[in-house]
């Protein structure tokens, strides 16, 4: 699989790069927990193990690298389950000059090539469309009453107590349990047009400000990757960092250092580009019909 991925990108003149796993800063997303370690030299410094190589790769893009890809380890704390291991392998790539559509096309081509027939005829649907299909709710407009009614009908009334009036949390919950399991029955399914409150590092759509230029890839209800039309506005990026750092504080989560290097790289100019990260262990699970992520790892965290 790794060899074929490398051939795929070599044919398209995308450069393979390597970026640090240990860094002074880290992603600020409240949902991602990180590992830290201490660098002992003249003074002790706290370093972060990267939850994704995104920031470093964007710095390369800003420095004029052109299209790049990387296959590397990423680390996310507190994540263990059938589809999760705290240390996992990621394929991340950025295409300069691509928009979201171009990237979706390339993702489909890569998956069809890798899967030898398993991923033929990929589907493409908008978030709003699938959300309405399985819940009858409007994903872009939050109505506490309508969302709560639906949860009660589904015998999921506990959602009301912990989602409260948090629209993004409701979307996470309903999408995870009522929508996602139905996506990509024996084929690849790309979901695009995420609500703006779930924009992460994507741009807001130029025509519809309620929607973010972001897509995800699913197969049989399993999430395989997340693609963005990359945000390049350093001030907007800074605002999102600050907002997330603030959320982390109010939720009493571990403190994080925002990546000033990324901000200055964005300031100097990130070319228009689209990028995506794919969980390779999960892809391998699907290609080999494995039931648990531990089946495709040499040693999972319990035995590492």
């Amino acid at each position, binding site marked *: 699989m790794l060899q074929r991925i490398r051939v795929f990108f070599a044919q398209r003149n995308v450069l393979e790069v390597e970026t640090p796993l240990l860094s002074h800063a880290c992603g600020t997303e409240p949902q991602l927990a990180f590992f830290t370690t201490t660098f002992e030299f003249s003074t002790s410094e706290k370093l972060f193990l990267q939850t994704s190589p995104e920031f470093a790769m964007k710095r390369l893009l800003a420095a004029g690298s052109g299209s790049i890809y990387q296959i590397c380890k990423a680390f996310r704390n*507190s994540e263990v*389950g059938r589809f999760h291991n705290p240390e996992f392998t990621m394929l991340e790539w950025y295409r300069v000059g691509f928009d979201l559509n171009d990237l979706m096309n390339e993702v489909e081509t890569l998956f069809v090539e890798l899967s030898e027939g398993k991923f033929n005829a990929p589907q493409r649907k908008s978030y709003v469309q699938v959300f309405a299909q399985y819940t009858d709710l409007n994903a872009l407009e939050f109505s506490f009453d309508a969302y709560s009614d639906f949860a009660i009908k589904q015998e999921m009334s506990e959602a009301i107590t912990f989602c409260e009036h948090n629209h993004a949390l409701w979307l996470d919950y309903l999408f995870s349990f009522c929508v996602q399991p139905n996506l990509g029955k024996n084929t690849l399914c790309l979901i695009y047009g995420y609500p703006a409150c*779930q924009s992460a590092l994507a741009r807001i759509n130029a025509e519809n400000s309620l929607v973010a230029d972001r897509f995800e890839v699913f197969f049989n209800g399993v999430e395989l990757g*997340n693609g963005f039309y990359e945000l390049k506005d350093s001030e907007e990026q800074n605002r999102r960092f600050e907002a997330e750092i603030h959320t982390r504080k109010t939720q009493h989560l571990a403190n994080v250092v925002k990546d000033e290097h990324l901000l200055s790289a964005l300031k100097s100019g990130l070319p228009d580009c689209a990028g995506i990260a794919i969980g390779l262990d999960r892809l391998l699970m699907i290609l080999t019909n494995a039931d648990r992520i531990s089946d495709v790892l040499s040693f999972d965290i319990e035995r590492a």
Partner: protein
Amino acid sequence: MAVYSTNEFRSGLKVMLDNDPCAIIENEFVKPGKGQAFNRVKIRNLKTGRVIERTFKSGESLEGADVVDMEMQYLYNDGDYRHFMNQETFEQYQADAKTVGDTALWLKDQDMCTVTLWNDSPLAVTPANFVELEIVETDPGVRGDTSGGGGKPAKLSTGAVVRVPLFVAQGEIIKVDTRTAEYISRVKE
């Protein structure tokens, strides 16, 4: 009592949920790549036996339940309560008909069974996997019947009714699997 967070939920863990003692059956970690992590948990309510599914935000916690399984000897039935004794401490416990439930059909005086205690009072009673009971009522067998035949109902001393082979007669003692209510063999005295 200890408090357990979602990542400590393992199959068999006993916790308190909605004021009832429950046992965790299954715990699946669900996380959107860019969103909140959840745990979808299958739980058995130990009082009602009902299995429910419940979602938690990862990191939420539940109080542990003081539930223990203990081997005890069944002593007698006083009409309202059945009495059990811990043979090491000689402590006695009584359980009402609701608590004992269908297990009553397999309880013979002096037999050992498992009593589940919650806060030191009986929550459920589980019979031994195999019990030996006397047949008090069954149709007489017909000559020439072998174990290959169809079988007939037989009422046991505890009130349970099981299917037995045609050659088994009233007054005999048989061994029964309590999990399936199936006849295993005759027991020679």
